[in-house]
């Protein structure tokens, strides 16, 4: 479970995140929805302890990101905004590297890697160097290595960015499966349809603030609109930030 409380982040004079508070529960998919530059990635980075908040904090499975970022990192799996993989290593070696960094080793690690390769249907390319991989194949490697240690919480920053239809479908399938396994899934997107198709709960961020949150139905009711898209435009537009 992820609980963010009053997250605030400045870079120099620029306020990237003003005030973000929300909760993402286990066994549910929570979507961070917002236009580009709204502060989604910065919020995510505070959650996984890459940057420290100036104010506020976040607690993941009982660990405070400010007090014990290492403990937080052990219980999360992250697909960051820019998930670079190592082009001279094979897909399997890329995944194994991160497994070892999580303290895994031996047959149990190899078994887990094989399971992930099957799950993501990448057996054909698993032992090839990733230099020539397509965007979709690269994304699969990145997601596999992010969840190699079987984390309870999974954060995905714009996971379908740049993916074709088939890869997007595969990604959605995976996200649903992660929820069914009882994990807490948090993912960010600026694509309305994706969020509405997947999420149990939506957190709308604009201008570094949470401007609305709830289930898709609640959001529609709150905005008094028929479609979620209209609700989004109404909520974000009301702030005059798009």
């Amino acid at each position: 479970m992820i609980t963010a409380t009053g997250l605030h982040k400045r870079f120099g004079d620029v306020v990237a995140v003003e005030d973000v508070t929300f909760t993402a529960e286990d066994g549910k998919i929570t979507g961070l929805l917002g236009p580009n530059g709204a502060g989604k990635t910065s919020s995510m980075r505070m959650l996984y302890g890459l940057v420290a908040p100036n104010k506020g904090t976040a607690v993941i499975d009982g660990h405070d990101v400010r007090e014990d970022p290492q403990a937080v990192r052990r219980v999360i799996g992250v697909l960051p905004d820019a998930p670079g993989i190592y082009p001279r290593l094979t897909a399997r070696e890329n995944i194994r590297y991160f497994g070892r960094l999580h303290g895994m080793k031996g047959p149990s690690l190899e078994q887990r890697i094989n399971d992930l390769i099957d799950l993501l249907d990448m057996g054909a390319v698993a032992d090839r160097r990733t230099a020539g991989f397509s965007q979709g194949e690269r994304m699969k490697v990145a997601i596999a290595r992010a969840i190699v240690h079987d984390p309870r919480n999974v954060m995905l920053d714009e996971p379908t960015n740049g993916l074709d239809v088939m890869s997007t479908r595969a990604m959605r399938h995976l996200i649903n499966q992660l929820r069914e396994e009882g994990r807490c899934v948090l993912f960010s997107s600026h694509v309305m349809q994706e969020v509405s198709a997947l999420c149990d709960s939506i957190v709308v961020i604009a201008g570094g603030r949470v401007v609305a949150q709830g289930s898709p139905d609640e959001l529609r009711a709150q905005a008094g609109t028929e479609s979620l898209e209209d609700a989004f435009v109404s909520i974000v537009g009301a702030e005059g930030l798009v």
Partner: protein
Amino acid sequence: MFNQMFAILQKELKDGLRDRRSLMSALLFPLLGPVLCAVLLNTVANSSTRSKPLELSIVGAENAPSLVAFLYTNGVEIQAPPPDPHEAVRDGELDVVLIIPEDYGERFRAGKSARVELVVDNSRTSARTNISRSKKILQAWSSQLATLRLLARGVSPELLQPVAIDEVDLSTPQKLAASLLDMITMFVILAAFFCNMYLAIDATAGERERRSLEPLLINPVDRDMIVLGKWGATVLFGAAGVVMTLLFTTITMGFVPLEEIGVRISLGPPVIGAILLVTMPLTFLAGAMQLLVASFARSFKEAQTYISLILFLPMLPGIALTMNPVKTEDWMMLVPMLSQQLLVSDMMRGDPTGVLRHALAIVSTLVISGLFLWWTAQLFRKETIVFGR
């Protein structure tokens, strides 16, 4: 915790070995230095004519038997005259031809200046040594005769020589070869910096540029361990470079006629062992220094620019010593790169070095490496490391 460090070290090594650029610089550089030095030393050996006898072609040797006998006793190898002396010299076939005219004996007996002709081409640099040697020996014959004639008349020969010039020539080939030894040392030291350069950049600025640094830092790994792992891989590449350079040096020195130029290079196993002991801390320093600089840089290219600039540092002592040799002092052992340069050169020469100097060099280099590593770790702790500065 250290398992993670080894995982990082192992990954960086594998990555480095698979990177053609890293591998090439690590493999080619250790070859380049020893081969270059061997070629230079061979050139020195060939051009050191001092030990070779002067070869002189004489036209009309029968006209001056006493002169020819003098030349012969002074170690000149007398050769048969060419058909056309002028052509032979102009074509560069011969450096010098001595022509003794038929009236030599007549004028000699009459006490007049007996003329001989020395056919030379002064524009040919390679002939200069032989020309001046020929002139010198003829002048020696001339002044010997003058001395005898004056003595026969009861006059002191010193009258003829109000000023006596004694030339003290210091430019022995040994000196030149000795400065080449400084060059070999410089290559050994440079290997510690050059062979790991790409790996250091790839592991830091390259990782950032590839955008794999952020995912790496999200793992529950101590930042210190990340830095140590990357540093370890960098050091191993540098150390391999040093070992290979030394290996190739021992091989190529086998092809250089060192005795001929009067140089002794000690490269036995004990000396190699001692050299390795002295240079290993330097690989620590090289790794830490390059990691630090590359972590500062925003991109691979920027890191490359900085590092090629700092590559001048390890070259500086070598170049300075080649130009202007100094006597080793204890305080110099506190300056990394300079200390290794001096110690390795001294050891190769077979000069005594002393335990204190070794200890000073090793400790000072280790301390400075530690400082650089600590600084790099500080950089990695900052959140700006992902974005660069």
